């Protein structure tokens, strides 16, 4: 009988430990599942981007004619311009010479690279200075109050 009691006591201790361990582990397991899930569901600080299409929260009607602005196209810069004829156009903003970011010159209605004085016309064609080829043109579509810029082809 005494022998029985001594053999049961450690067994009980082990069992209670195992129960405690399993309960804690199960709790931790649930937390480890829920935490990444909540992190996934809460949007990150930085806006997610794709390399092929971006939707810009810019109202098309608010853009002045004969103006341009740099917008994000994934991690790369793009230039969105409204021509003097009120047409929206977008191009890759990296100059084809040495990849400086180009800008819009309303005084001459050219896309211009300040680094080495490269000029592009409103079709992105290199017309003056060292740029060897035209800027890549993106497709621009207006969807309500948003502008959708996408890679062509």
């Amino acid at each position, binding site marked *: 009988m005494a022998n029985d009691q001594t053999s049961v006591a450690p067994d009980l201790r082990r069992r209670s430990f*195992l129960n405690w361990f399993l309960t804690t582990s199960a709790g931790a397991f649930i937390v480890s599942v829920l935490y990444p899930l909540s992190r996934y569901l809460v949007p990150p600080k930085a806006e997610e981007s794709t390399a092929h299409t971006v939707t810009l929260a810019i109202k098309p009607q608010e853009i002045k004619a004969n103006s341009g602005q740099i917008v994000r196209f994934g991690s790369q810069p793009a230039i969105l311009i409204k021509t003097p004829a009120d047409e929206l156009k977008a191009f890759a903003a990296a100059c084809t010479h040495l*990849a400086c970011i180009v800008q819009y010159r309303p005084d001459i209605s050219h896309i211009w690279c300040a680094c080495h*004085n490269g000029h592009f016309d409103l079709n992105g064609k290199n017309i003056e200075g*060292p740029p060897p080829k035209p800027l890549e043109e993106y497709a621009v579509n207006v969807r309500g109050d948003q502008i959708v810029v996408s890679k062509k082809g």
Partner: protein
Amino acid sequence: MSPPNGPSRVALLILLLITYSLPTRINAQQQADTCALCHFALGIEHLTKPAEDYKADIHAANGFGCVVCHGGDASKMGLDAMDRAKGYIGKPTRAQVIEVCGRCHSDARFMRQYNPNLRIDQVAEYFTSVHGRRLREQKDEKVATCASCHPAHSIRPPSDSRSSVHPARVAQTCGTCHASAEYMKPYKIPTDQVEKYIKSVHWKMIASKGDLSAPTCNDCHGNHGAAPPGVSSVVHVCGQCHGVNTELFNKSRHSKIFAQMGLPGCSSCHGNHEITETSDAMLSSGEKSACATCHPPGSSGGTLAAAMLGSIDRLKTGYEKALVVLKNAEHAGMEVSQPLFELNEAKTALIKARATIHGFDQAILDKEIEPGLKISENAYARGLEAMDELQYRRKGLAVSVLIIVALIIGLIIKIRQMESRPSKADRK
């Protein structure tokens, strides 16, 4: 006039035979091209080749026959066609070439019918060139004329890649004379220009990248008005493409000093025909230094060069460091497109800073360097944050995995224990 030699005599005889043996009735098309008819029939290479080549000539495509340049009467056959009374001049002399080509090409009204875009001042320009001046003033019969660069009988427009004046072939065309030590011997000028040019960054752009906007001989020397740019013109010539650098240089202290010393602007540091790719090392005091040629290390110029190099290096290192950490974070799946996007501005600042070197002023340079450095530092910090977040996530994953493994082990032990415990029935 010397009597015709052996082969010419034979040719003349054949020509006479052809003249009188050919049928007198020939159709209209043949009438318009009786020159070619005989030249082909003669079978002598130096007579058939021009007629053969001319089939692909832009003038032939526009309906011009041989007589437009050579004179004579294409409605007659044989020697009758080559009637000097009817303006036949045979092979034009160099001076005649200019006159013959200029007859149409200097006439705006005439040229408008065929190519209204084509300039009509080539002849006027030609006589401002070294070639034209030597021809007119010294009656030099070795100089280049129209047909030297636009080979008579096979003239194609410059846009045609087979043309001798296509941008990719201009150097070869000029080199026909200018790379020949023997031909150029009387002029006592170097003949290594083409050899040097094909090592230049400009030729590299044309040959390997197909960039036909890169300069070749005529872009710096002019084509019809070809001449060395001259010390005072070098900056303007390079400035056709490198406008920002030129503007900065013209405002710099170097501009005035170079003019006083009679030194050409750009080429003093960059060379002329063998303009290789520039590097930051040009500001160093090392082997590739451009500054150290005049400014020894320790002098005020040398110190400025070292300071400018230091600024460029700081921005370059800052930019590259930020790029590496952001790219690593991106490859690890972290969202870093915003700092990567912003870092493009730092790259722009670095490229602009390299151009502003031509102002030779630390203050001008710093205007580009400082904003670039700030962007780089910010991007680097964001990259580090992303990497920290990555480490945090990895640790979290490791902890989760450990917990899951421990749970599985615990479950296994529990199951085994339950299986090994005697049931109530067994105990009874």
